[in-house]
């Protein structure tokens, strides 16, 4: 599904190398978690994969189903099946959430040469999916993320994910700013999307999200490299010993 080889990334504006050779392979149907201390490059990895400005790939490659994604525009990556659930979903005053969802869904259908959803089919689908995420009609009408609580924003991300049905979902610290109940709700939304054909990359500081979204593989990212890979038990080790312990072990 996703294959990253020897990925080196620096900031465009300054000589600061952030990723220093990341190798990672996410298979369809699997959930990979990336954990790591602050400043290890976790968010950079998610932004580089989704095509945000400000980063320069100096070496290495990233392919989604065999296609080089690093040369693509963000919208092309989305159409190819990439989805990033933002750590801080962006507020867009003046654009209705529903308009936004519909524009995005239709744009992707168009890019893939598929037919656009009819207004009524779209509405039906949004309502059904919103309901399971406890997103009410009022939230759908409001401008994108404006005045949403932290939990509402994250649920809105998952709703977008559910509507766009991507092949690879990257969740960037989706647990940040959520209380336990909100986290459960979000995790349920994510789990409902787990599917044989879909890969997940879950980026998080803490093990607690992984109690709800059970990973198949856990990686530790530190200093711009993946320093350790293991099963779900690795997340527990982080919880018990902290990153310092693991990093010392690997050094």
């Amino acid at each position, binding site marked *: 599904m996703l294959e990253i080889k020897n990925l080196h990334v620096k900031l465009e504006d300054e000589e600061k190398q952030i990723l220093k050779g990341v190798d990672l392979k996410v298979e369809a149907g699997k959930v990979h978690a990336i954990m790591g201390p602050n400043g290890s490059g976790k968010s950079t990895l998610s932004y580089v994969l989704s095509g945000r400005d400000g980063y320069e790939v100096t070496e290495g490659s990233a392919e989604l189903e065999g296609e080089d994604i690093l040369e693509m525009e963000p*919208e092309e990556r*989305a159409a190819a099946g990439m989805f990033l659930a933002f750590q801080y979903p962006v507020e867009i005053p*003046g654009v209705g959430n529903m308009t*936004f969802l519909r*524009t995005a869904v239709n744009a992707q259908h168009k890019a893939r040469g598929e037919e656009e959803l009819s207004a009524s089919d779209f509405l039906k689908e949004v309502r059904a999916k919103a309901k399971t995420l406890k997103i009410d009609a009022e939230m759908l009408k409001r401008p994108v993320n404006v005045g949403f609580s932290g939990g509402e924003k994250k649920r809105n991300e998952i709703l977008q994910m559910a509507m766009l049905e991507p092949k690879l979902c990257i969740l960037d610290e989706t647990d940040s700013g959520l209380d336990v109940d909100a986290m459960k709700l979000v995790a349920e939304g994510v789990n409902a999307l787990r599917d044989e054909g879909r890969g997940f990359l879950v980026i998080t500081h803490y093990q607690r999200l992984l109690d709800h979204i059970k990973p198949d593989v856990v990686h530790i990212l530190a200093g711009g490299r993946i320093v350790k890979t293991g099963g779900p038990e690795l997340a527990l080790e982080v919880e018990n010993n902290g990153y310092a312990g693991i990093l010392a072990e690997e050094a």
Partner: protein
Amino acid sequence: MALPEVKQSATEARLSALTLPESGCLKAARQAALSRVQTMGLPSRRDEYWKYTKPDTLVQADAPKAAVFHADEVPMFNAFERLNIVFVDGVFDAEASDDLELEGLTIDRIEDICCKDIHWAKDLYGVLEARGQTPVERPLAALNTAFASDGVAIRVTGKVSKPLNFTYVHSDENSDAILHHVIRVESGAEVTVLENGPAASRFNKCMEIDIADGGTMHLVRAQGRDHERRAATHLFARLGTESVFKSFTLTVNGVLTRNEAVIELTGDDAVAHIAGACVGDGDFHHDDTVFITHDAVNCESRQVFKKVLRNGATGVFQGKILVKEGAQKTDGYQISQSLLLDDDSQFLAKPELEIYADDVACSHGSTSGAIDEEGLFYLRSRGVPHAEATDLMTLAFLAEAVDEIEDAEIAADIVSRLEGWLARRR
């Protein structure tokens, strides 16, 4: 005080190209206006009030040529019931217009004010314009009162069932039109007036609106998008107790537009909202100049102006709220914002507050900015292509001004016009 020589000669040159229309009982009003023009002189770029907008082409004797833009799209405000009033190059077109009859109002041409002895119109023509000359001079409005060649007098006495729709057709590339409308909204009456079209190569329009206690008027205009047209418009409104006046103006293209709105809140609890959205590309200069005077208790005024500018287009906003002594509990709000789509475009804003009462709430703000990159990336990361995402963000920026239009159908028409403009620029 004698006028500076340059101004004097420019004013004389302009006046010599005009003849005062024969107009019986309006003669005194026209002559008084003419002497106001002669005293003030026409605007020059040295005038403080014209610091950001060059008045030269609005003042010069002959109108600069402006090509007629042939649009193959549905006319504005076409989808709903309305009474059509059509002017071609500033001349009333009876054939293209509907019968000027509608329950709750009367419509007459200004040339008929005298023979029909329409008292209220005689008492209004040039009056609000003259009041609006202090504290700031507006010579182009006085010129209009003196020389207007056509226009209508509308008296609204009831709740009118459908909007009046003025269509200003531009058909002659050398046309130079001066129109003057007077509107009186009687106590408790209510009307919606729509205006659209470029009108002429050069258009000088003046509208005097007198709203009696408890009257309501909505005005929505879409200034035509002939690229080379020029326009100077003045809106003078006087609001009585508990009256409401809400106006929205869309400006798409046009090489030069100056829209002045002079609003006087003279009765307690009156409400005035003045909003505008403009989109300009390239050789485009758009100036909103607003002067709102609070002269009564507990009135509300609101100014919301948004401009989208690209390829060297210029936007100007001069907006003032004057709160007179005793106008307590005034609620005044003013926002002017521009979205600059490139580094060549500019926005010049001069927000002003002048307050002589001590129990008021007034706020103003002005911003210029580029498109929000974060928002753009967010939309693109969901698969929305760059051009479409930019358009969405642009419409979102304009939304706050468009939202000032209360009627959903009219607002939808305005939005579709904006979408068309954006789509043609992809």
